[in-house]
């Protein structure tokens, strides 16, 4: 989160912040089910009450985590997707066993592409500032996003970024592209600015 703007734009508490918004109204605001009059009243309050604004921020994070399929952190060994993936890998190894020797002596082809960055890719890139991702879910979402853009990719199991991505679109400036290179089941990502 941008430290300068987060602090500068935070609502400063005023007389209005002595009485706080109804929590269910805040929930309805997050869901988008308030009528215009109720919403306008609440918006005015949120621009003046630090606590209620903070509740809204945090609720949005939790709702977002829920809708992106992460309602609560569960240990990796409890996730069904891990077992499904393990079973898939085992199946592939058994069926493809006869080709293993042949592939061992081949070099994996290197794929590379440049893509325009859309919001879906940005959301995936900005989840945290880790330079290496091994999280299976996150990698699957990235592959899905790349498939939508027409990239036919093999599965990769590690993502390496040249640097953490922060949305660096300048108020005055350049566009960004995502350069992706896949080699030996590793996807190397780099965001570049173009004039």
């Amino acid at each position, binding site marked *: 989160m941008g430290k*300068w703007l987060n602090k*500068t734009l935070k609502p400063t508490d005023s007389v209005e912040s002595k009485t706080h918004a109804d929590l*269910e109204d805040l929930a*309805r605001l997050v869901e988008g089910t308030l009528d215009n009059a109720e919403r306008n009243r609440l*918006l005015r309050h949120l621009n003046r009450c630090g*606590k209620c604004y903070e509740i809204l921020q945090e609720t949005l994070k939790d709702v977002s985590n829920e809708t992106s399929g992460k*309602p609560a952190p569960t240990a990796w060994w409890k996730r069904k997707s891990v077992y499904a993936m393990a079973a898939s890998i085992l199946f592939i190894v058994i069926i493809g066993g006869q080709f293993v020797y042949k592939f061992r002596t081949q070099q994996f082809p290197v794929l590379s592409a440049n893509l325009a960055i859309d919001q879906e890719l940005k959301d995936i890139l*900005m989840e945290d500032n880790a330079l290496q991702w091994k999280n299976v879910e996150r990698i699957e979402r990235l592959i899905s996003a790349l498939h939508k853009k027409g990239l036919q990719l093999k599965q990769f199991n590690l993502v390496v970024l040249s640097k953490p991505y*922060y*949305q660096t679109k300048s108020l005055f400036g350049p566009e960004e592209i995502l350069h992706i290179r896949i080699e030996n089941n590793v996807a190397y990502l780099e965001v570049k600015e173009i004039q």
Partner: protein
Amino acid sequence: MVDNFMDPEKILISSDILARIEAICKRHFSNENDQNESYVFIIDSLRADNFKRLRAYKGKSKLTTYLYSLINSLIIDFRRKKYGRRRIPAGVVKLGKWAEAVYRLVCWQRFSFDDAYDFLQIEGLFEGPYEQYKEEIAPIRKAPCRENPAFQSLDEVGSRSLQNTNSPSSNPLEFLIGKLDQIRRIKALKIIRETTAELSQEDQLLVRLVYGSEQSVKTAANIIGFSASSARRRLKSLLNRYRERLLSEGIREP
């Protein structure tokens, strides 16, 4: 998770809900002790007065969303109760309001001394030049700070770079701020704050959510009651407004 009227007691024995509460506590606090304390605080608060806070749910929103609002509200209360009573060392208080502000920023909020100077300028709490500030913060550097053990030996003031190139950005305004030198950064932040205050309530919240809290445009639009495309157009127009104000005051991207 069932989004209907549930017996409050059943809500609090649901493993799914307890896991969500635990996850929220972990998200707010890195310290395991605080995670555990806040968890207990939340459970106790939800049980209090015959589950009064849970019974306040009227069914106008989804239960999960209501619970998220409620739990986050309780976490904020917990944090204010626990850390709101933090004392600023007497030696710092003696120096004045500006020193207390520096202590809060550096010790509790983990800004650097350089950043603290910038915020003091924006707030009008310290009007002297940077060199004077460097001298006057000497006693503050020696003040103890349990939350940030490195505080006592912190030495952030060295060669002061003109550009804060280490400051990553997640939006055009933040990116611009990060590239400015200290004097122009202070000026730019004041202009942004003033410009924001002149906006309509909807536009103010839109800017806060997207550029302050870095929510997606779609999420912010949903909150405010716009379509996503309308919100994007609005943001583009607002960015132009900020840009024009900044340019009129001599602030441009270096």
